[in-house]
């Protein structure tokens, strides 16, 4: 049994029915070595202040619900441990760049709309039925997209991206990484539909390669790479339109 210590957790609080702007409240939280930041928040909710609101589900970095800012760093609170911050106090805030609904809960609808815009599913060249049998791939073909397919939509990358914060028209890291994931899939023939999103000013060209999105990704998706590789595709698409005006685009 590990020793119990006490850490100060400073939490952003915002109640839309009472507050004009967010404020901070500090809690003294006893913790043991194995306790995550999420468990610290749960302790506050269970023992100190039942009104603290935050999202969580799986507690093992799979569901992507418990993302928040700890000391200005976007993290999954289930994957970060209080012992690593002690003896300093920690400041917990909702994910940056998203509207706050209440306390640590943010409104994800903007992202969900963007996710939908990238056609995040396989578009087969011809309609397939179960009678067509399995759509086989070689290990090499899987390797082409597997990294990008690890995204859990936790939105840490959006909270890390100042370009999204400054202009939320930008499609953003996770949606563009998922776009790259489907484009790279040998079973997919939907590249042309997605090209409009890629080419747009708010598409890959909205990225200036700050690069923090890839650093904070808990699943090592590397959205910065996905986006910047698509800049090459977008450039090719632009010039090929002049070379073959009747073949591509329009």
């Amino acid at each position, binding site marked *: 049994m590990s020793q119990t210590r006490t850490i100060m957790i400073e939490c952003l609080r915002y109640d839309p029915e009472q507050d004009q702007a967010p404020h901070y409240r500090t809690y003294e939280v006893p913790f043991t070595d194995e306790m995550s930041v999420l468990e610290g928040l749960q302790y506050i909710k269970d023992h100190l202040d039942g009104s603290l609101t935050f999202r969580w589900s799986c507690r093992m970095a799979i569901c992507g619900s418990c993302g928040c800012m700890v000391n200005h760093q976007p993290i999954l609170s289930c994957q970060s441990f209080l012992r690593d911050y002690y003896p300093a106090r920690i400041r917990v805030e909702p994910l940056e760049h998203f509207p706050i609904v209440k306390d640590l809960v943010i409104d994800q609808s903007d992202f969900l709309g963007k996710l939908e815009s990238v056609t995040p599913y396989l578009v087969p060249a011809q309609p397939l039925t179960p009678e067509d049998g399995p759509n086989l791939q070689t290990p090499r073909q899987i390797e082409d997209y597997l990294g990008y397919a690890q995204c859990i939509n936790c939105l840490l990358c959006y909270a890390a991206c100042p370009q999204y914060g400054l202009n939320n028209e930008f499609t953003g890291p996770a949606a563009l990484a998922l776009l790259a994931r489907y484009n790279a899939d040998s079973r997919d023939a939907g590249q042309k539909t997605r090209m409009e999103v890629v080419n747009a000013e708010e598409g890959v060209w909205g990225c*200036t390669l700050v690069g923090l999105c890839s650093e904070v990704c808990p699943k090592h998706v590397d959205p910065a790479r996905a986006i910047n590789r698509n800049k090459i595709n977008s450039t090719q698409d632009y010039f090929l339109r002049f070379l073959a005006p009747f073949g591509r685009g329009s």
Partner: protein
Amino acid sequence: MTPAPKTYVRPMNRWWMRHPAYRRYLLREGTSVMVAAYALFLLAGMVCLVLGEAAFNLWRGFLQSPVSVIFHLAALAAFAFHAWTWFKVMPLTTPPIRFRGRSVPDRMIFRAALWAWGIASLILLVLAMRFL
């Protein structure tokens, strides 16, 4: 229909203070201002050349001044830093490169770029010392 909940959007003022990665990014982009400034300086030399011998000699004379030496040293530092960071992000911008069926690791691309940079600079230096 239920009305949309009242949400709070935090301002972005002083956003670069929030993370060291943002400051590194601004420094990287900021050095490109020096790159542009040096391009303008060279352009000024070209304009002087077109204007005639007297103007060109004036520009060459300025090259020897302490202000010019400081400007050149600052430009060299900015160029070196800019090139270094450019090579660092290069693997993210290149299409997937495979060698004997395996992806070439990022550090190999970075090192290859550094070598190419070093060799190109050396050739330029040798040519400059020989012909100037």
